[in-house]
């Protein structure tokens, strides 16, 4: 304790006690304004925190609403795209399977006509009627009866023989026609089979279209749900977006590793082209050049995917007519092939440089320079990798599109979550300030508990005395 605070420097304990009592008395005297000060400060802090939390919640709600709009809008766009694709597929199926329907119909009609004609031809001719038998029997009886008249008998017999001959001829004709009918029926079998096959094809095509129609119905239901901005649709879209984000991130990480390997393949030989000494900032120019080549490949891949309408990152490309897009696709593919060729040759050069480096090291070490056997295997492997990797990187466009679209939503959701947590934190701070004010008031009272107790006793005594006086007065009045 500083010396100037000592009232009785020769007696510090007494000085401290005096100061303590003075302080307590001061605090007791200032109790009411101090309580008011503490209370108002705590309340101001609490109110301030509530206002801040309210403002944060407002921002969070606006952001959540905006996120919802974006989510539903992207969901709608996606559903429209899928419906459009399904219609395109149906159109292609109709063109492919049912475009030749008139010809198919004509073929079917021909087949039916042929079968009908053949069928009519195979109509069975009735066998010889019983009258033939009766006529022959009657002729036989006449021959027996005309036994005494040889001329008559001969005539009847000749007649009978003629009739029998005619009967045999008729039977032979009947057998012949039956054979022809069987032949015709045998010929009808392939026609039936052809017709059955044609009808099966028609059934498959129609079934395929029905299946696609059902898928379109499902998509339309989904579209209606999204259009109605239902909570179910929002939940579905959010979940789907999160899955897309995770999958796209994973694929992009894998693609980045592929890009890194590609970079390692061409960075060293690039120093043969642009030199190994010049630098761009902290990086070697050869490294930058290799990186630029890889980035150009990825860019060409993006344009190729856009031209093929697999991705839709660039609306300008999407708006081009089919012919221009086809030209662009060929142009980007040609550039990619050229770049792949360059990379392949660079990869081969890398192998040569590495071999030269090894040879020099062996020479410097005083060892005999020798080229290991089967060194062509890694050389060929590097060349193949150098050629394939640019095309593999082309497909980065697909996960990149998913990532860009989904990251916007995911980032929004994360921000909303953070804002919610922040608002809660600020609320808690206000709550803590309020309770800290109450606690501080109690602590204050603990410090001045002695004067407070005395005050309480005095007030109690005063009240008792007043009560005694009033009791006495009422007794005397009575």
């Amino acid at each position, binding site marked *: 304790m500083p010396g100037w605070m000592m009232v009785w420097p020769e007696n510090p304990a007494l000085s401290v006690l005096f100061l303590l009592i003075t302080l307590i008395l001061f605090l007791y005297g200032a109790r009411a304004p101090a309580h008011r000060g503490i209370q108002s400060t705590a309340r101001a802090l609490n109110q301030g925190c509530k206002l801040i939390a309210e403002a944060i919640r407002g921002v969070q709600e606006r952001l959540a609403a905006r996120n919802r709009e974006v989510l539903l809008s992207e969901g709608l766009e996606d559903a429209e795209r899928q419906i459009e694709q399904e219609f395109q597929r149906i159109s292609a199926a109709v063109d492919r399977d049912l475009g030749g329907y008139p010809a198919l119909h004509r073929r079917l009609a021909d087949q039916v006509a042929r079968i009908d004609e053949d069928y009519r031809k195979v109509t069975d001719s009735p066998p010889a009627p019983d009258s033939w038998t009766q006529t022959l029997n009657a002729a036989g009886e006449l021959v027996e009866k005309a036994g005494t008249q040889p001329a008559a008998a001969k005539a009847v017999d000749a007649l009978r023989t003629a009739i029998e001959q005619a009967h045999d001829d008729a039977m032979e004709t009947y057998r012949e026609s039956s054979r022809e009918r069987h032949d015709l029926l045998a010929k009808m079998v392939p026609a039936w089979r052809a017709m059955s096959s044609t009808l099966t094809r028609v059934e498959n095509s129609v079934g395929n279209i029905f299946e696609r129609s059902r898928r379109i119905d499902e998509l339309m239901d989904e579209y209606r749900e999204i259009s109605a901005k239902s909570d179910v649709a929002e939940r579905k879209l959010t979940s789907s977006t999160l899955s897309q984000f995770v999958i796209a991130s994973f694929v992009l990480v894998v693609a980045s590793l592929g890009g890194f390997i590609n970079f390692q393949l061409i960075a060293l030989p690039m120093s043969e082209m642009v030199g190994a000494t010049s630098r761009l900032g902290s990086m070697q120019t050869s490294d930058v050049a290799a990186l630029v080549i890889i980035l150009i490949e990825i860019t060409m891949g993006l344009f190729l995917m856009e031209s093929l309408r697999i991705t839709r990152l660039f609306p300008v490309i999407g708006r081009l007519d089919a012919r221009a897009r086809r030209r662009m696709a060929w142009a980007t593919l040609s550039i990619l092939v050229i770049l792949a060729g360059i990379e392949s040759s660079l990869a081969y050069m890398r192998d040569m440089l590495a071999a*030269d480096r090894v040879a*020099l090291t062996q020479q410097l070490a005083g060892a005999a320079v020798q080229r290991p056997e089967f060194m062509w295997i890694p050389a060929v492997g590097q060349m193949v990798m150098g050629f394939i990797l640019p095309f593999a990187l082309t497909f980065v466009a697909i996960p990149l599109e998913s990532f860009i679209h989904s990251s916007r939503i995911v980032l929004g959701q994360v921000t909303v979550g953070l804002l919610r947590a922040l608002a809660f934190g600020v609320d808690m701070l206000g709550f803590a300030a309020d309770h800290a004010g109450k606690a501080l008031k109690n602590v204050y009272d603990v410090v001045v508990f002695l004067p407070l107790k005395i005050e309480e006793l005095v007030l109690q005594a005063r009240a008792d005395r007043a009560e005694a006086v009033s009791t006495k007065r009422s007794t005397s009045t009575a």
Partner: protein
Amino acid sequence: MNRPNVVKACLALGTALLLGACSPVPPGTGVFLLIDTSGTYAGELDRARSVINYLLGTLDPGDSFGVARIDGGSFSEKDILVRVTFDERPSVANDEKRLFLEKVGAFTDTVRSAAHTDITGGVLQAVEWLNEVGPGRKTVLIFSDMEEDLPEGFVRDFPMELEGVRVIALNVTKLRPDNVDPRTYAMRLDRWRERIESGGGRFAVINDLERLDVALDL
């Protein structure tokens, strides 16, 4: 700005950066090795050759490397055996290293012992060449016992300008007087340290050539 314009702007900026910032900068490292050929030290040439081999394997394209001998009057062009700034292209640089190795081999096979040791002249010659080439890091390696023995009339007791130069004494062998009084050896090295550091350079001694890579930090 819409998305296609952003892409165009990025491409334009990248191209401008590439075109504008590709100017060649000075090569990274310059090393000059001085080989003492005087007296008994001439017998250490095989070790000097292994140091040269190590340096040739370590230096990159664009780096500069020179080798000169220390004899009675080392501040002379005729004492420089070979000096080269390696080509930017790794394959050409490798060919240059092979040629370098051949020249050094021819020297070590035919070298004759020198009567005097002009280390200061060699250092001046090395620093002059390094300053002329202008590498980012300048290192002078002195493969010697660091005992200077000048011919009569040679003046070398003046301050040297060694700003930004690292001088490393390699394989500093002990002489007979050092064995008699080891303080002689320490005093000799201290004298060199003082001379180098007073000229603005840095001085180090490496006797264990196995840790040359760590000490050189190329």
